């Protein structure tokens, strides 16, 4: 398959472009030269401060949150053998949202990090529930229904907290902002909180692309061909929930990335998971970084999660019109 390197080159170039734009563009514009100089510790103090304290953490958080959501979407779609599955299907992101909203509503006790910390706690609580079910050998259908139940439960609690806080405009706005996703004002602590876990889970996920291809065509068939299906399903659910939990903790609910990116890549490059996984990581990261750019100029209403859905939705519709599923 000599075409693979070319495809990857394209996606890597796209990501590099997104990274460069994310570092350079904003209220204070930096030229490529200024970015380059600042990276190597040259140039003036202000560009170095902008780059290292503001742009770089924001960019790295976007990179890993996007890659994690892209990969997690691929896994959920293969796991449930349904192209409509998304990272939030099992309640992990709504669990994370509830944790974050709870922390906001109750007021920060631990400072800036109480929100992402609470989000990680909420997401892992949901993850724990899902994994316990999966370990008991629950079928995908059972897990799916459990996810529906968890989503409803967490969603109701989040709505309750939101309506309770609506009277306090400031709190209500903060909660809404978080629910719509965003990576502004991220610090290096956010980076350290998300990137090791997302990187590790992604690296562990990549070699599973081969057996995932077999799983996509049926459990029994996959097992008869030599796959330990039970173990594979367990690995997939653990890794994908970790990715979703960490991405949600640092980026809020960034809608649609995990659904639309794998879908678009499947339509354009085929369903082979050995390609789909890495390309969705690159594509998810690029989409999040590029969609983050307009939020820097369009005022506070245009949140990252709003833009990813505004861009992703029509693009998917356009692709579907060209080539039916």
């Amino acid at each position: 398959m000599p075409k693979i390197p070319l495809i990857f080159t394209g996606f890597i170039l796209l990501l590099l472009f997104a990274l460069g734009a994310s570092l350079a563009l904003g209220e204070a514009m930096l030229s490529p030269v200024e970015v380059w100089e600042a990276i190597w510790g040259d140039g003036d103090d202000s560009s170095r401060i902008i780059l290292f304290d503001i742009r770089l953490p924001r960019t790295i958080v976007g990179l890993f949150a996007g890659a994690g959501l892209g990969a997690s979407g691929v896994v959920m779609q293969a796991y449930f053998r349904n192209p409509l599955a998304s990272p939030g299907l099992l309640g992990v992101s709504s669990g994370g949202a509830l944790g974050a909203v709870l922390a906001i509503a109750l007021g920060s006790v631990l400072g800036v990090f109480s929100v992402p910390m609470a989000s990680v706690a909420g997401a892992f609580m949901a993850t724990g529930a899902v994994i316990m079910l999966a370990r008991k050998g629950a079928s995908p259908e059972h897990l799916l229904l459990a996810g529906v139940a968890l989503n409803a439960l967490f969603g109701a609690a989040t709505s309750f907290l939101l309506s309770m806080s609506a009277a306090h405009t400031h709190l209500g706005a903060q909660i809404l902002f978080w629910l719509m996703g965003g990576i502004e004002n991220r610090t290096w602590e956010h980076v350290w909180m998300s990137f090791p876990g997302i990187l590790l889970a992604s690296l562990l996920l990549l070699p599973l692309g081969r057996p995932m291809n077999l799983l996509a065509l049926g459990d029994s068939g996959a097992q008869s061909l030599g796959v330990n299906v039970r173990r594979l399903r367990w690995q997939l659910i653990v890794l994908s929930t970790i990715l979703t939990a960490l991405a949600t903790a640092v980026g809020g609910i960034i809608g649609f990335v995990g659904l639309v990116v794998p879908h678009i890549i499947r339509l354009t490059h085929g369903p082979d998971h050995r390609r789909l996984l890495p390309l969705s990581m690159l594509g998810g990261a690029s989409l999040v970084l590029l969609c983050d750019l307009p939020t820097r100029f369009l005022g506070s209403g245009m949140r990252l999660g709003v833009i990813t859905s505004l861009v992703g939705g029509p693009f998917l519709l356009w692709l579907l019109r060209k080539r039916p599923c």
Partner: protein
Amino acid sequence: MLRAISLSVDGRLRDVSLGVCGGECVAILGPNGAGKSTLLRALAGLLRAAGSVCWMGTALERIPYIERGRRLAWLGQESAAEFAFPVRDVVAQGRFAHGDDNQRIDEVMAALDISHIANRSITELSGGERRRVFLARALATGAPIQLWDEPTSSLDVRHALEVYALARNLANSGDSCVLVSLHDIRAAYRFDRVIVLDQGKLIVDGSPHDVLTAPLIRQVFLVEARFLTSLVPELPGIV
């Protein structure tokens, strides 16, 4: 080559014992719900069953998963086709346990008459075409034990005959055995041996000419059987 002792699956299969040697081509008959698919799945290690199963002298539970993929191939009745994999990639999955070495693929695609659709997506195929693709995947494994659950159910007459011929050739080539579940009683005469299941129990096991008697067919299938002379389709060159 393949041996099962007192194989039981709660309510669906009761105390079935059988042994199949290399070179044998076995048909499994029985009405709907008799346990044909359950037996094949239990033999393939795809469902929890009481009793013991041995593949080529080794107890099934002692064979690692990847090695199972090299020893036995199983073709199920249904196959998921939600994702648009090209036909060739599906057939190539048969080489998973061999590290995706791409051996045998063109050969089995030609044998099952799917070379011309190699680049089509499985989501676009007819039921019969898809069946042949998944049968090709099973054959591509090169596994000596082949279990096919109603492989001819959606095939036209020529492709069905070709599948019987394939089973026969595989068995004749030496160290392979083929077990095929069927609904067509007449097709069972093309096999060396027939196993009839009814309500989860093994009723008879022997050569089709010996065991397929009118009383047995009446008892198991609740139909009358009579001999008649009529046109019987065969592959060109056989008649």
